[in-house]
């Protein structure tokens, strides 16, 4: 079997195994898995409205997945997508609330603010990695909590002691009457267009630019990159900044599209962590991220229908996602299994 085929088979098998484990858990805990998955299916594809909402849910997952995947391709593990997304969310909402400008200025400004905030949040771990060789995983985890507490405090200040900001001005909103009408008045907004454009941007950077060539080389081998005259430190920082900007844009989708405000949070949104799953499932390629984000975004939104339609706690879907991550991460064992199966076939 070619490596390309196994590369595609590993995620597919992982998804199937994840769904099987989910079914077993439902069965053991006294639910009917067929009802459960039927409710999930209807929650995703039930009618035009749910399809619109599903696509809306996919939007931030696309950007979170791009953020994780882009860092991965440069040899960095950005667990800080969550924090970068949170600061992006705040920055976009703040710009949306604080000033009122013509839309042609206001909306891009709010989006750029989110990207910049995420980029700054990514710059810090990038700088520490480049200058002090501090592992980015721990720093980004710490940055997540710093983001959570800091934005909560800022929201309190901005709203005069409240738990959420005002709603943003319409001139900064991504809302689209056209998309809403198309999907029986779901909250689908123009963010999906931005997210898809960003998929193209990531592909372009990695596959068409000299920057992408350097980032990939640095990701594979620092020593050889340095030998070849690349500035390894600059590339590490740049990779984290770009990754953070993608994550920040993910926050803008929530601030300017779905919610149109930002509220203080007791815990994380989870989108950033799910971004890791999206990137892994998509093998860190732009096209793969579309696949991963579509799957996980759909599962997440569809799960909301499970308690109502089948009486099953929606956490079952989170369990399925966690199990899928395990299997994708343990790709070695699946590859081994596929290899043995292929050999047996040959022996016959």
């Amino acid at each position, binding site marked *: 079997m070619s490596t390309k085929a196994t590369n595609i088979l590993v995620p597919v098998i992982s998804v199937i195994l994840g769904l099987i484990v989910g079914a077993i858990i439902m069965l053991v805990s006294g639910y009917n898995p067929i009802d459960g998955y039927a409710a999930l299916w209807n929650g995703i594809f039930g009618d035009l409205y749910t399809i619109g909402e599903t696509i809306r849910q996919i939007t931030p997952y696309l950007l979170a997945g791009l953020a994780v995947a882009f860092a991965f391709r440069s040899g960095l593990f950005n667990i800080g997508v969550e924090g970068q997304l949170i600061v992006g969310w705040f920055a976009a909402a703040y710009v949306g609330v604080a000033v009122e400008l013509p839309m042609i200025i206001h909306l891009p400004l709010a989006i750029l603010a989110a990207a910049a905030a995420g980029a700054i949040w990514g710059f810090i771990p990038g700088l520490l990695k480049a200058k002090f060789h501090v592992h980015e995983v721990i720093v980004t985890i710490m940055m997540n909590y710093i983001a959570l507490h800091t934005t909560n405090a800022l929201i309190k200040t901005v709203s005069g002691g409240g738990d959420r900001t005002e709603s943003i001005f319409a001139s900064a909103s991504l809302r689209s009457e056209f998309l809403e009408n198309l999907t029986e008045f779901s909250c689908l907004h123009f963010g999906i267009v931005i997210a898809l454009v960003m998929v193209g941007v990531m592909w372009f950077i990695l596959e068409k630019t000299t920057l992408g*060539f350097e980032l990939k080389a640095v990701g*594979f081998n620092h*020593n*050889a*990159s340095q*030998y070849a*005259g690349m500035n390894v430190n600059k590339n590490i920082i740049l990779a984290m900044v770009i990754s953070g900007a993608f994550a920040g844009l993910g926050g803008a989708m929530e601030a300017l599209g779905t919610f149109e405000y930002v509220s203080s949070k007791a815990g994380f949104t989870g989108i950033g962590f799910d971004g890791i799953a999206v990137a892994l499932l998509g093998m860190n390629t732009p096209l793969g991220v579309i696949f991963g984000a579509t799957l996980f975004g759909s599962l997440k939104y569809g799960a909301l229908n499970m308690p109502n339609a089948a009486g099953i706690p929606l956490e079952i879907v989170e369990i399925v996602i966690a199990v899928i991550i395990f299997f994708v991460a343990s790709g070695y064992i699946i590859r081994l299994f596929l290899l043995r199966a292929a050999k047996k076939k040959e022996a016959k």
Partner: protein
Amino acid sequence: MDVRAGEIVGIAGIDGNGQSELIEAITGLRKVKSGTISLHGKNITGLKPRKVTEAGIGHIPQDRHKHGLVLDFPIGHNISLQTYYQQPISKNGIIDYNKIDEKAKAIIEAYDVRTQGPHEPARALSGGNQQKAIIGREVDRNPELLIAALPTRGLDVGAIEFIHSRLIEQRDNGKAVLLISFELDEVMNVSDRIAVIHDGEIVDTVLPEETTEQELGLLMAGHAVRGSNHKEDQHVD
């Protein structure tokens, strides 16, 4: 110490006596504490690796897996590892992978690199073919000074022969070659002059036809045979 155009200077020495540090200092991978390095009379001390490369130095690194190649990259990408950003491969930051492939095919052909093609990962090639690709890449830039560090380590006789002839060809084209090797007979056979390095210093420079392996061995071990006449500066004319 100096290396002139049209000659091969071999550096003989026991591993760990400062050979790697010397190369890293010349190529900009290590900070120079004292002394100057010049190429064609132009001071290149302390330049970044990229500037050193652009100034006209080629470098076959001693560890091809650590420094020489990005093993997970296609061999074609590796062949353009220092030139990917220059015309004609790149224009305004946009890279043309067709040009990378064209160049790779030419070098694979000219240097007899046995591979399935430019898209095969460098990891999949044999050691000898990886080394040929590196040498092709470095010589193709036509550097004024080619530094070859342990260029034949771990290779079979055929590959060794091929690499030696390439170094000599480079010299015959009027370029300077600096050869670092732990193999005495390689140093003796290929070099026009031999500099002996011991404990971080060049202790003597000898001509291969006027010395023996025994004499070299003594020098390498730190026994002064003749008066030492090392200089801190090194330049290429």
